[in-house]
């Protein structure tokens, strides 16, 4: 059901790990749905010099996190914001329809990390919305 690219990124994830004292960290998703993604960014002079991820989730969730880090590493913040979930899916040569939400999660994780960076540095990033959700208990109660 997964493409070769997905399997490759699942078995050999790129940029997996943590960044100590990262410029920005974003965590999205929740355990109830079975996906949690965390992205760490190191930003210097508006450029994402390093990026790492940690993911709890299915094979597609791990692969989308991995490829998303590759797509934004070395990019300016403005360029990174243009990396959409569609670009993530394309870079993996496609995802099964039920797994497309994983690519959205990757986009959200990146945005959440950028938001965290902006908050910490009291700057405003053009076109960046505050993260929609984070892992918290409230969501469990809502349903």
């Amino acid at each position, binding site marked *: *059901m*997964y493409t070769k690219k997905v*399997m490759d990124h*699942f*078995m050999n*994830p790129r940029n*997996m790990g*943590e960044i100590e004292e990262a410029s920005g960290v974003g*965590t999205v998703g929740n*355990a*109830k*749905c*079975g*996906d*949690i*993604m*965390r992205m760490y960014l190191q930003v210097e002079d508006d450029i994402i010099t390093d990026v790492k991820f*940690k*993911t*709890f*989730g*299915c*094979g597609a*969730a*791990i692969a989308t996190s991995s490829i998303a880090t590759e797509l934004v590493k070395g990019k300016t913040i403005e360029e990174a914001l243009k990396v959409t979930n569609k670009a993530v899916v394309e870079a993996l040569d496609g995802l099964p329809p*039920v797994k497309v939400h994983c690519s959205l999660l990757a986009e959200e994780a990146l945005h959440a990390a950028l938001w965290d960076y902006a908050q910490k540095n009291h700057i405003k990033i053009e076109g960046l919305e505050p993260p929609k959700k984070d892992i918290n208990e409230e969501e*469990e109660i809502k349903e």
Partner: protein
Amino acid sequence: MNKIYLDHAATTPTRSEVVDVMLPYFTQQFGNPSSIYEVARINRKALDEARTTVAQALGATSEEVFFTSGGTESDNWAIKGIAEAYEKKGKHIITSNIEHHAVLHTCQYLEKKGYEVTYLPVDEYGQISIEDLKNAIRKDTILISIMYANNEIGTIQPIEAIGQVAKEHNIIFHTDAVQAVGHIPIDVKKMNIDLLSLSGHKLFGPKGIGVLYIRKGIKIRSLLHGGAQERNRRAGTENVPAIVGLAKALELSIEEMETSNKKIIQLRDYLIQGVQEKIPYVRLNGHPTERLPGNINFSFQFIEGESLLIALDMHGIFASSGSACTSGSLDPSHVLLAIGLPHEIAHGSLRLTLGSENTKEEMDEVLEVLPQVVQRLRDMSPLYEDFLHSQR
């Protein structure tokens, strides 16, 4: 790379002895058992013999055995057929919340048709309580449908006690025994079972064949209408090769049950113990003693089941998950939630179901690979990272 098949609760290979007895019925003995000429008479005889074999395996008589297309049809027929036949008496059904979807979705369908269904809860080991069952019984209760053994966690229900309660209250008792028949001893008369579903491919028989046992004297509406096959109760030309194969598979599994279970239980306990020794933060789901010989169900904290399955697959180990993630639903298994597991733990479950052809060498291979795979996924997991930080 050796392939290690540990998904016998999903399906089993058809044994070669079974295939051998089936083959002639595809070619030389192809006749329709309902026809009058010689080749058909031979098939009629084969059908009768198969029916007797199945009846003996269950402690039933041959006129109580009806061949179907499998477990799903048997469950659908039992529940819908009884519901319709007894609707004048009442429209209340009791089942459990860990049934197979063939039972659960059939009950939900009947709810839309005006029936009322009570879904009994289960305890942390997956068993219903007899007290709960007694309390759920109403004047208009017409059917109790409780599975014999659970497909995910392997828990065996107190079937004899349920049968006793059903008998005392004069309520029909159906059991989905798809995971149990051929694996543990069953006696429908002793256990007071009125209807029982079984499936061929779970006991090293062919796919597409099953049985509904219907106790003599039980009224039931037909699901399939047409010809007069199966004594007017289940229309459709009999699947003779599969019926012959099912009977052979059942005969063999009952013959070998004791020796085979001894071996399987040894392997199972060896694997369970090994995993618990080698991997921290693991939970064995299901009942400590009342469990199917071949069933193992683990939850590994901080990781998700599908990624675990794919990683095991890459190492040639074929297993299954309690998470329905792969089938497109984001909800974890209803069974694991019913035994009280939190969502994130239910998501990280792994089902290994053993068969008699598995070996100790294979268990050792699993004990080599599984700890590595679990650790690799934990190293990737933000939940594990948070847990480690909280431990500092």
